[in-house]
């Protein structure tokens, strides 16, 4: 179990190493602690491997950690087995630096194979000693004593002869760890080789498990970091030296901020609440030096040209001569892309930096190396830094866990309190050290009779040291890259090539990289096992038969035969290309023993794959339908655990081979920041998996954590060759790549963007200047200021009845006064919001009853004149952004109620800001001329032929509701146009206000019911959700009685041409069908971006599955509009601040991704509409507007 003192619901912490070593009543196996002075036998100087207490508790300690693979359970099995105690008696302590031995990083599948040996020996030692103690106490020979299930028996008796408590009461036996021990014979195993349920799963399933993300300590604050723009780069002169300035004022107004920490290129923010820290990290403005990312548009080229040092691994025979004598020469190149670890939970850590030391709760894979890093970061001795290790999200390599721990230390030190730092999804994607790309050249071929005279293998691998980020960002360590030697894993093929030369090209990193499952072995085996398949084909021999002829390892041969037999492998020569309609089926084989660790390395388990694939030759989609996987793991500790690991390896590696590839951009290096841009395998794509574990219990146990991934790529590619006759040597096998390989074009792509119509806004802009120039001359001369109306003392709110004020409140909501007259985070009605209009920036004014800065000294006649005629109390003309032409239609009684409401609000003193209008509109007197031209019409007269409801609706829509202010286009002079233009679509604050009439762009006309639903809830199932400036309007409309909403719906519906409900439903389902995933296979990166980023909430037919589900995109007005404005705005802004729940994708997607996504959505969901023009411009404009 994890340490969990910080969580109320967690079990008590295990006894610590020091506490155990100090107490009596124990037998423990110890060894000198790393770095301890020779001869020191205090508890500080001793590592504890296994300890048995008089109460019958067994504690076993490993410096390795459980990465979610169930190693905690398997280790406990081994200890319990050798000790002859019940499994349940064993408690594992993993990875806590204060308690466990420093066994380095948990890598290379070596926990069972290598690290467990010490505790297994220790368990054996304790067992032997216990029997010795019992024999002495009972004065009999040791042969008479047996230990079964944790109890000591004498002879044949079935009652325990002596209890542990008696035996150990006064003992404190510290046994030095032996170098070796005689383990139990296999046929005596009760636990090893038996499937045992994992100890961690019940708590993971009920929510009580304490992941590092769940650690809470008293007084804990929340931190976020802001990373530099050189995303995913950790070497080069710019690293740690790119920050120019940080604008601390950009955090003003965000509550709860405790610290902004800046050191070198490190920026962190500490706040009281997590959402405050998150908001601050987004809001912080920082200026960075520009940087040029490496060109990774062609990974193979980048690897080949990056400076590298050749290292000859093997040079047997005379390769050059043999190459010259081949009967059939085959030179091949294989390319492996960058991958992500892709932990589902972004990394997280808690640090508490105190005067007496540092405690860090971490999900690190490497607690001891991390301890060293933190010593460098803080300047403290290692011993003062405690890493308490908790499980985190599965990683299968090294993600940002160490980075975030160091971040937390810097932030905790700055505020003197514990700080939890949670990385964002975007940061984890961008900055996790990637699984490195790789390039392999093989020269060779066939000799006489299918012999293998030559194998000249060259492998390029960029290094993967990935120093802990904070050390680089703060300049603690040099920003120059280290070159490691890690490209040589499994570089030796398992076939007898007569002459062989293997060369690894070591090079510094290109982008930040670390080891990822099957490090460098997966790509090397992709090459080895593809190449042998190519040779088999050239030789005209069945691929399995050909391998068996040349294989040089008996266990590999045995596994190959067993796996082929299990899969019912049918020998065949050449690709079979079995056709089933547009589907081609095929089968492929590959095998390897995963050899890891420093050259020449250590062998882990052997694994072999038979993969069955289906290739759709129309779409290019590859499906792995079945995998038969054989594994020789040596002794299997927990068969269920190993099978589970094999399943995990098969699915994860299938995902990597079919789908995964890190994308890069010209501006930020790594481009993929979410699951849309880096898609992984999903449930519908699961292959059937058949696992064959060879019975090798008499052999030593071998690492099982990675081996089954290693043959994946070649097996799948070989199967695709069998299906199609085409050989793929570059991954992933995306539909585009497969189609290109098959020499086919992609299926009907969405319509290319080519609409010629310019946005209305730009049209309006261009006409403005000329029109106003004409208007100016006559207006300027003829019209002066209107008279001012005398100020009054602020009226006493008691003047009005509560009913009048309440009516005024509803009318203020209808008019959405607060929406414009309130600045973000400001006091309602105090003004200050900047409204962007075609004529410049209008600043809204303070309409609270403050006598000096608001309207407190306005009499009702002054207020009424402003509302009806657009004239300020002092006689100035108001800009028509204030829609007095609409308000003029309001009844006297309603205006009085509105006045009463506003006058009874709290008075707020807030000076008004000047508007910034373009010439000549900045000349206010001209607006009088505008009024002459477009004189408001005064109160509306009811139309007697229409219902009362309709007339009420028109009064609300055209009056205080002022819908036309946004939804009616304006003429060149900025006035709402009449006639057919009425409510035919306008604009507001950079958003398109769609038409509310029969020319509405959506595929379904507005009905009264949908209008009601939209106005009441903000969402119409047939049109979409309110967004942008409409969202706060809907929020305000909540104040209106149902009858008024129904009246507005009734009136607005009369502007459209109704369709029968049945026809609407029929059209909606036709659209759903045509826009569904089934009709639109994901055969491009942007289609997969949609799948990963949008489909969970928007996929047609799924809208009932999630509370968050958004409207059907095939019906959405945003997608059917003439311009991409609203869609782009929505993608960037989201709807969370309005009425919906759509998150903003502004940080998750870059401009290119947003533009491509908008284009894709238009093509897929707005059937029959032309593609959009100017998407990139719309994105640029929206970003500039701060979206």
């Amino acid at each position, binding site marked *: 179990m994890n340490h969990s003192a910080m969580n109320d619901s967690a079990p008590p912490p295990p006894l610590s190493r020091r506490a155990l070593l100090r107490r009596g009543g124990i037998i423990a196996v110890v060894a000198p602690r790393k770095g301890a002075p020779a001869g020191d036998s205090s508890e500080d100087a001793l590592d504890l491997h296994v300890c048995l207490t008089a109460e019958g508790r067994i504690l076993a300690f490993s410096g390795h950690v459980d990465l979610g693979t169930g190693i905690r359970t398997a280790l406990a099995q081994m200890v319990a087995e050798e000790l002859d105690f019940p499994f349940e008696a064993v408690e594992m302590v993993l990875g806590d630096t204060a308690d466990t031995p420093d066994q380095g990083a948990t890598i290379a599948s070596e926990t069972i194979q290598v690290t467990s040996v010490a505790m297994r020996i220790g368990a054996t030692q304790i067992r032997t000693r216990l029997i010795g103690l019992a024999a002495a106490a009972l004065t009999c020979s040791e042969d008479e004593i047996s230990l079964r299930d944790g109890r000591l028996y004498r002879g044949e008796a079935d009652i325990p002869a002596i209890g542990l408590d008696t035996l150990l009461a006064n003992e404190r036996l510290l046994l030095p760890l032996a170098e070796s021990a005689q383990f139990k014979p296999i046929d005596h195993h009760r636990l090893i080789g038996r499937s045992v349920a994992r100890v961690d799963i019940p708590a993971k*399933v009920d*929510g009580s498990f304490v*992941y590092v993300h769940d650690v809470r300590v008293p007084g804990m604050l929340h931190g976020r970091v802001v990373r530099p723009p050189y995303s995913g780069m950790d070497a080069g002169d710019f690293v740690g030296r790119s920050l120019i300035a940080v604008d601390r004022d950009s955090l003003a*107004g965000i509550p709860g901020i405790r610290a902004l920490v800046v050191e070198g290129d490190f920026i962190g923010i500490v706040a009281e609440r997590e959402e405050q820290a998150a908001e601050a990290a987004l809001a912080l403005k920082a200026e960075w030096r520009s940087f040029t990312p490496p060109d990774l548009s062609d990974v193979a080229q980048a690897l080949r040209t990056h400076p590298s040092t050749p290292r000859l691994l093997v040079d047997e025979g005379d390769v050059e001569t043999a190459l010259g004598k081949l009967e059939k020469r085959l030179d091949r190149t294989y390319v492996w892309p960058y991958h992500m670890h892709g932990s*589902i939970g972004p990394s997280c850590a808690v640090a508490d930096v105190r005067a007496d030391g540092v405690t860090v709760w971490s999900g690190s894979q490497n607690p001891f190396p991390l301890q060293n890093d933190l010593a460098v970061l803080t300047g403290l001795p290692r011993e003062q830094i405690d890493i308490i290790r908790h499980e985190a999200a599965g990683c299968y390599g090294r993600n940002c866990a160490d980075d975030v721990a160091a971040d937390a230390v810097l932030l905790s030190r700055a505020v003197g309190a514990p700080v939890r730092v949670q990385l964002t999804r975007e940061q984890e994607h961008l900055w996790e050290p990637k699984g490195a790309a790789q390039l392999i050249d093989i020269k060779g071929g066939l000799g006489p009779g299918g012999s293998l005279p030559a194998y000249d293998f060259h492998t390029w691998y960029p290094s993967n040291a990935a120093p802990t980020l904070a050390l680089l960002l703060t300049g603690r360590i040099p920003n120059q890259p280290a070159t490691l030697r890690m490209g040589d894993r499994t570089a030796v093929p398992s076939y007898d090539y007569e002459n062989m030369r293997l060369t690894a090209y070591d090079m510094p990193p290109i982008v930040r990289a670390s080891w990822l499952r099957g490090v460098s072995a997966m790509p090397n085996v992709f090459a080895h096992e593809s190449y042998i398949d190519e040779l088999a084909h050239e030789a005209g021999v069945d691929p399995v038969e050909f391998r068996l002829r040349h294989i040089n390892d008996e266990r590999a041969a045995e596994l190959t035969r067993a796996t082929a037999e299990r899969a019912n492998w049918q020998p065949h020569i050449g690709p079979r290309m079995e056709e089933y309609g547009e589907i081609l089926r095929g089968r492929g084989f590959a095998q390897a023993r995963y050899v890891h660790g420093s050259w020449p390395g250590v062998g882990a388990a052997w694994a072999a794959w038979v993969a069955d694939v289906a290739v759709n030759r129309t779409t290019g989609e590859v499906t792995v339908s079945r995998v038969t996987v054989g594994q020789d793991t040596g002794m299997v500790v927990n068969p269920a655990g190993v099978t589970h690991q094999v399943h*995990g390896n098969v699915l994860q590696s299938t995902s990597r081979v079919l789908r995964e590839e890190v994308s890069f951009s010209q501006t930020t290096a790594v481009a993929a920041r979410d699951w849309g841009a880096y898609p*992984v395998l999903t*449930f519908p794509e699961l292959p059937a998996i058949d696992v064959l574990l060879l019975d090798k219990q008499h052999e030593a146990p071998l690492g099982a954590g990675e081996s089954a991934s290693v043959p994946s790529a070649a097996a799948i590619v070989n199967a695709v060759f069998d299906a199609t006759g085409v050989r793929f040597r570059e991954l992933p096998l995306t539909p585009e790549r497969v189609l290109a390989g098959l020499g086919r074009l992609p299926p009907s792509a969405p319509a290319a963007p080519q609409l010629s119509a310019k946005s209305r806004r730009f049209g309006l802009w261009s006409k403005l200047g000329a029109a106003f120039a004409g208007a100016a001359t006559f207006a300027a001369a003829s019209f002066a200021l209107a008279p001012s109306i005398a100020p009054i003392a602020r009226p006493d709110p008691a003047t009005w009845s509560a009913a009048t004020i309440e009516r005024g409140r509803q009318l203020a909501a209808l008019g959405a006064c607060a929406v414009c007259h309130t600045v973000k985070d400001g006091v309602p009605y105090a003004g200050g919001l900047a409204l962007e209009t075609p004529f410049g920036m209008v600043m809204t004014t303070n309409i609270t009853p403050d006598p000096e800065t608001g309207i407190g000294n306005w009499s009702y006649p002054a207020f009424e004149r402003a509302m009806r005629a657009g004239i300020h109390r002092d006689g100035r003309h108001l800009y028509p952004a204030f829609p007095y032409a609409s308000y003029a239609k309001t009844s006297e009684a309603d205006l009085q109620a509105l006045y009463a409401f506003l006058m009874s609000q709290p008075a707020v003193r807030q000076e008004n800001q000047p508007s910034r209008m373009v010439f000549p509109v900045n000349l206010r007197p001209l607006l009088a001329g505008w009024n002459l031209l477009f004189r408001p019409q005064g109160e509306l007269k009811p139309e007697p032929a229409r219902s009362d409801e309709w007339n009420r609706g028109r009064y609300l829509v055209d009056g205080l509701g002022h819908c036309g202010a946004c939804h009616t286009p304006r003429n060149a002079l900025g006035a709402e146009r009449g006639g057919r233009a009425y409510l035919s679509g306008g604009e507001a604050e950079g958003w398109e206000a769609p038409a509310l009439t029969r020319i509405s762009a959506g595929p379904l006309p507005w009905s009264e019911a949908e209008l009601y639903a939209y106005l009441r809830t903000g969402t119409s199932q047939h049109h979409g959700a309110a967004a942008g400036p409409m969202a706060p309007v809907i929020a305000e409309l909540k104040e209106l009685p149902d009858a008024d909403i129904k009246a507005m719906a009734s009136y607005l519906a009369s502007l459209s041409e109704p369709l029968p409900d049945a026809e609407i439903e029929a059209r909606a389902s036709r659209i759903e069908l045509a826009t569904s995933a089934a009709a639109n296979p994901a055969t491009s990166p942007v289609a997969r971006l949609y799948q990963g980023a949008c489909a969970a909430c928007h996929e047609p037919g799924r809208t009932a599955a*999630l509370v968050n589900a958004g409207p059907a995109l095939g019906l959405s007005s945003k997608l059917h509009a003439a311009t991409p404005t609203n869609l782009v705005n929505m993608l960037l802004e989201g709807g969370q601040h309005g009425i919906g729940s759509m998150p903003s994708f502004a940080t998750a997607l870059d401009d290119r991704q947003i533009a491509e996504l908008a284009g894709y959505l238009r093509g897929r969901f707005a059937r029959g509409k032309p593609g959009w023009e100017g998407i990139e411009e719309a994105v640029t404009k929206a970003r500039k507007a701060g979206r």
Partner: protein
Amino acid sequence: MRTTRRFALRVNGADHLVEGEPHTPLLFFLRNDLSLNGPKFGCGLGECGACTVLIDGIAARACALPVRLAEEREIVTLEGLAGSAGPDPVQQAFIDAQAAQCGYCINGMIMTAKAFLAVNPAPSEAQVREALRYNLCRCGTHVEIVRAVMLAVARARTGETGTP
């Protein structure tokens, strides 16, 4: 405008008042104010499903759901599934099928399965896979997860409860 106010949340049958802004995701309040660790932060974008809770019985991605939309509705988290008699049948099936590796995504798998089975108590395996399509797992536990859900389905049909 910054409009900090109190929100009445009904979670796992108990009433809570939390204070914050209306657009702040529900997940922050569940985890940080109510110490409910079942729902996990995975992406903040509603893409991966690790944060899933039930709201009025329907699956909700709490990382992307503004708290104002959860007000005065019935919220259930992973912690709220178990009854006095022990784990919920779906949880028990996940234990029996050993359907977790790192387990970070498991909250989402269980909660999504709960919501799905409430609507479709006797699905085919293909339907279960489709229902879980937008819940991501990195460890490759998919096989065990599908088995767990099908086990829960089979037990519901036969009335068997599984080993507690």
